[in-house]
């Protein structure tokens, strides 16, 4: 298909078939221009005053007050979290795919071996301070062991507090 032929008549300011703003330009004599310019200003003032007088136009969400009702969308991407079942068990096999998928070294999967010599997760370090929430780690994980969390209130006073340990075998309660 020849695209140039499918092109419709292009908009040119002042063209008669389309009501363009240019057609309402103040033109003509000195006085006519002053009057039409003045009317254009009044119309603008009319618009703003409708916003002022109509309280329904206020779109502000009052954040800390609406915290309870403020829900993020299901796909919302914030702080990475590890999926855990009701017993607190995760399903990370320490394959390290997420680590490699991460574009900027946010994740460190530190492995150890169990008694039978199989690789398992020792520590899962997540550097929130350099995470871009790009979701590549979650997309890569073959087991669905990690998800992007919904918690967006992540501000901290200390830079080091933003290095999170999502899992550490040392902290796990073991029988």
């Amino acid at each position, binding site marked *: *298909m020849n*695209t*140039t032929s*499918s*092109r*419709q*008549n*292009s*908009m*040119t*300011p*002042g063209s008669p078939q389309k009501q*363009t*703003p*240019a057609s*309402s*330009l*103040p033109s003509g004599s000195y006085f006519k*221009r002053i009057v*039409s*310019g*003045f009317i*254009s*200003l009044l*119309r*603008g003032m*009319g*618009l*703003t005053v409708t916003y002022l007088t109509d309280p329904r136009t206020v*779109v502000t969400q009052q954040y800390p007050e609406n915290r309870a009702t403020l829900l*993020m*969308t299901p*796909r*919302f*991407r914030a702080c990475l979290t590890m999926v855990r079942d009701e017993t607190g068990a995760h399903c990370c096999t320490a394959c390290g795919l997420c680590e490699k*998928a991460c*574009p900027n070294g946010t994740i460190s999967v530190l492995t150890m071996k169990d008694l039978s010599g199989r690789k398992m997760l020792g520590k899962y370090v997540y550097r929130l301070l350099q995470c*871009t*929430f*790009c*979701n*590549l780690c979650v*997309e890569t994980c073959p087991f669905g062991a990690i998800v*992007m969390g919904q918690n967006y209130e992540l501000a901290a006073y200390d830079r080091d507090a933003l290095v999170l340990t999502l899992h550490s075998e040392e902290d796990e309660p073991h029988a």
Partner: protein
Amino acid sequence: MELPAGFTYRPIQNGATDEYFLNMGPQHPSTHGVLRLVLRLDGENIIEIVPHLGYVHRGIEKMGENQTYLQNIHLTDRLDYLSAYSNNLALCLAIEEALEIGVPERGEYLRVMICELQRIQSHLLWWGVLGMDMGAVTSFLYGFKEREPITDIFEELCGARLTMNFFRPGGSAFDAPETFLPRVREVISSIRKAVDEFHTLLTHNVIFQERTKGIGVLSREKALAYGCSGAVLRGSGVDYDVRKNQPYSLYDQFDFSVPTGTTGDCFDRYLVRLEEMLQATNILEQAVRRFPGGPHRSKVKAQYKLPAGSYWSQVESARGLFGVYVVADGSAKPYRIKYRSPSFSNLQVLSELVIGHKIADLVAIIATLDLVIPDIDR
């Protein structure tokens, strides 16, 4: 007196003139980020201007050489963050071209719709910021007010508001949620209403017209010679739009027109962008009507390895012709990746536009060029 770097005119004659140099930026409210301009002024009139770039040059092209193609998609978000989807798409198109990956119809529709939504969103922001630069602060807030519902759609779609990392070779990371179409319909009607309001508030406003008409006139020849694209080129009367001239995705199946200006002044560029928003709603309306079912992406590969060669793809982002030039060496990472940024060339023409104008006009001209500095600096 020695001239600062970049100035080429005759040197200042001692005592002959009242010329002086004024440094604007890198932190200045109307340079839209960290652009630095050095002005040579005679009173308030600009004699010469030298832009200084690199205040947010992050070396994305170098970084891209060490990241896989998938990871590179997430870096493109950060070039022109107001057209993150278009940037994603450009890189995906290059990968698809290299690997012969096709996209299912639903995926293509999703691409077109999202890119158009993003164009509207970017233009809304531009309109607001333009108004603020001209002193009408209220327009800034009206622009952002209309922008929020679109951001909501994005957030619902991919979980992020600005840096999406959404498109993948062969489609997109997620399918459209159920609420997608109704929300797009809402946005279409609200944008059409908003554009009317914009006309009332700024376009018809006599002060605004006085400030923009005949200011920063960019001739057709100059626009082409400087490689301008997007609304800057079209404002000068060249009807070049990648969506029409080299259609990608499904743009050849949509009915829309490419608005062009006649004089190439700030007001024309302004009108072109407003009209583009309406055209984008037209595209969206058609897409909503025909939005197909089926899969949203084609077969996923674990690793994208491009065969050796060089690939080029280009899209029409909100600011103009955005392109990706990938030189692949057969590995999972590009050998060289080059982004063609529209704002880069659009800014270059600034030094031609502002000569003889006043400082206030400079602000209007920069605003109508619609620059995104990280896109220029990369």
